[in-house]
């Protein structure tokens, strides 16, 4: 199924040209070779004349010419070898066969010598050229292998389709010495060209129909093939294991480049390589997305269960108590009635605060919260938080200890108030109704600390850091305590984090839990000196 299998027709189309082109590549017609050949033959003649002077037989002289022809055949190939054989026989006949310095009719017998010499030259030159071609081919092969290796290595380190295509485009440009067009196939099947500027060039290089044809038929087209052969670029599909991820087009500077099927094959191999890299990348991304999806799903499930339980409970209570009031209008005494109404009010306020928290968390998660920071007076923020929970806090002693010289806080007032409300609500939920709560503030070095401490049972051992996790709920709940969604403290942490501060929880030595907010002192709170001045 590989792309290589689909070039059959193209292979035939260029097969005849192959041999001659291969020859031409390593043995260009060069008149200098013929001159050198002639000189070699002359040299052979000179050596022959020395041998002749030593009264050696003609066979030895022929051997010398034969050696010359062999040398020429190995060095310069067929043409010069033939030339050497012909010229050699003529020289031999003219100088070394009686009558000397002339061609005689009896010389016909030297046709045998000539024939052997010619055949020998051709044989040697053919063998030599085959050897040469093999050497060249293996060098070429090695070169391609190293190019493919480079491409594999570079692509394997990258992620993101766009990056992959860009790098591949650069590498292909180097390999084929030409213009590269990358078409990426979107999930919906439409083609996107990688580089917008390349668009025009690509349209010139190929009528878009060539690209469309490639996309439809999943086969190469354009330059060097028999389809859309008028195009100046070759377009090859990038076929992965699952689908065709795109099309690569090359417009080589040398239009004959793709006459060599090796080059076509190389391009197709590269295209497969790119396709597989992109697929690998996409699978990786999909795997990551799947993981995120699973986590989101888990979060959604716990949210749903929290909402369905903790939001429906107060609503159910409201519905039941209110309908009892409606159904028995005259029956219940005023004390019971008041109790019922009180329940409705408390439960609805509780539900409203839980909705506040859910919305707050959703906003914080969506990153939609902007910190409108201002210089705020802590006392004021505490006052607002306490007044919001005045009803819930009745029966508890609330102690607020803020030093008069406590600096202004560089915080978003509404969000900080939310933190205080949530911390206080936590106290209300998890400590006995008559126990106290203390809010205190101190400064040390570069940080301001605000502590909300209660006199309840404290946190379960080991849960000190977990209480700030979403949907965490302490296992121990006071007898009549209300359970929350488990978002309150998570919101506190998100808000304090956004302020660059820290929130932590611990059990106090004397009993009860303490939540500490630590905020970095903002630079030069502008009027802190004036607080003192005003007093």
């Amino acid at each position, binding site marked *: 199924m590989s792309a290589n299998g689909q070039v059959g027709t193209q292979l035939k189309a260029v097969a005849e040209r192959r041999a001659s082109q291969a020859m031409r590549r390593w043995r260009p017609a060069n008149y200098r070779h013929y001159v050198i050949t002639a000189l070699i033959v002359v040299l052979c003649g000179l050596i022959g004349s020395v041998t002749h002077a030593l009264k050696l037989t003609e066979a030895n002289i022929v051997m010398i010419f034969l050696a010359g022809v062999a040398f020429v055949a190995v060095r310069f190939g067929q043409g010069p070898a033939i030339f050497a054989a012909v010229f050699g026989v003529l020289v031999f006949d003219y100088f070394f066969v009686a009558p000397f310095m002339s061609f005689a009719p009896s010389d016909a017998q030297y046709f045998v010598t000539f024939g052997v010499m010619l055949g020998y030259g051709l044989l040697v030159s053919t063998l030599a050229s085959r050897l040469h071609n093999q050497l060249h081919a293996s060098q070429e092969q090695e070169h391609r292998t190293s190019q493919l290796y480079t491409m594999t290595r570079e692509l394997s380190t990258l992620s993101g389709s766009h990056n992959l295509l860009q790098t591949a485009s650069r590498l292909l440009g180097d390999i084929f010495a030409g213009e590269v067009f990358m078409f990426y196939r979107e999930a919906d099947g439409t083609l996107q060209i990688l580089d917008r500027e390349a668009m025009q060039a690509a349209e010139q290089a190929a009528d878009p129909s060539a690209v469309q044809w490639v996309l439809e038929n999943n086969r190469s087209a354009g330059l060097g093939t028999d389809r859309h052969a008028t195009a100046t670029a070759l377009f090859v599909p990038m076929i992965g294991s699952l689908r065709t991820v795109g099309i690569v087009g090359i417009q080589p500077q040398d239009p004959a480049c793709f006459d060599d099927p090796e080059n076509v094959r190389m391009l197709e191999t590269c295209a497969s390589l790119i396709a597989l890299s992109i697929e690998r990348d996409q699978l990786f991304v999909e795997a990551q997305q799947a993981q995120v999806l699973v986590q989101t799903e888990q979060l959604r499930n716990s949210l749903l269960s929290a909402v369905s339980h903790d939001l429906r409970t107060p609503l159910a209570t409201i519905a039941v108590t209110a309908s009892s009031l409606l159904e028995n209008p005259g029956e219940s005494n005023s004390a019971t009635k008041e109790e019922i109404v009180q329940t409705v009010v408390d439960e609805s306020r509780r539900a409203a605060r839980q909705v506040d928290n859910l919305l707050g968390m959703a906003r914080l998660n969506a990153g939609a919260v902007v910190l409108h920071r201002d*210089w*705020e007076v802590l*006392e004021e923020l505490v006052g607002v938080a306490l007044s919001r929970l005045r009803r819930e806090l009745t029966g508890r002693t609330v102690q*607020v200890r803020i030093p*008069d010289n406590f600096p*202004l806080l560089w915080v978003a007032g509404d969000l900080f108030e939310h933190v205080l409300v949530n911390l206080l609500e936590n106290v209300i939920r998890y400590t006995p109704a008559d126990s106290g709560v203390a809010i205190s503030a101190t400064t040390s070095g570069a940080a301001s600390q605000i502590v909300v401490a209660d006199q309840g049972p404290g946190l379960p051992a080991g849960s000190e850091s977990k209480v700030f996790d979403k949907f965490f709920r302490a296992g121990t709940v006071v007898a009549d305590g209300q359970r929350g969604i488990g978002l309150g403290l998570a919101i506190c942490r998100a808000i304090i984090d956004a302020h660059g501060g820290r929130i932590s929880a611990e059990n106090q030595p004397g009993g009860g839990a303490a939540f500490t907010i630590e905020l970095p002192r903002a630079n030069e709170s502008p*009027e802190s000196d004036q607080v003192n001045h*005003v007093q």
Partner: protein
Amino acid sequence: MSNAPTPPLAPLVMIVEDEGPMRRFLRSFLSGSGYRLQEAASGAAALQLAAEKAPDITLLDLGLPDMDGQDVLIKLRSWLKTPIVVLSVRDQDTQKITALDHGADDYLIKPFSTGELLARIRVALRHAAEQRSGVESSVFESADLKVDLAARRVFVRQTEVHLTPIEFKLLSILVHHCGRVLTHQHLLQEVWGPKRSQSPQHLRVFMAGLRRKIEPDPAQPKYLVTEQGVGYRLAME
């Protein structure tokens, strides 16, 4: 709830609210408290009704189906002199500030308590009456706090406290508008004048100082109530 206004004619309250249950509740509660009522379920209806009936006070819900509550407010305010109290769900502070800037006299966050609603209506009606008659009491008293504007003296539990000129100015402005929320911007301009550009923290610092002088527990203020993100209100009993 007992001291509802008495005849000759009870004040006419216009309720602009699209939600049926809330309208039903306001109707039964306010008519029970002795007010006359007109109801509008949309912005367009409200504008028409206001022109026909000239209400003494308007309760305007900001979340209306046909037009933005703020637009209704602007259109009403362009000719209507009587108080407008805005009702809204707990939301961004900017909404409240915008409403006050557009001429709302006060705002209430849903859910509100009925006592709170009646108090706000009374405050708004009284301020309107004072403005019409031009008569204003120069002595303010609430629980243990007594402010004598004419004599420029302030007492807490019959003990005089000494305020700096700016603190007194701040307090006197709040007294003038007692029970109503005043935005940071409004207070800054009243105290320091429109030309001086002071930032809200300036105000917060002076307010903190003022609280320490007149509040028994500054962190749980009885008089100088913070409206988070909007401004301050001098609470009445």
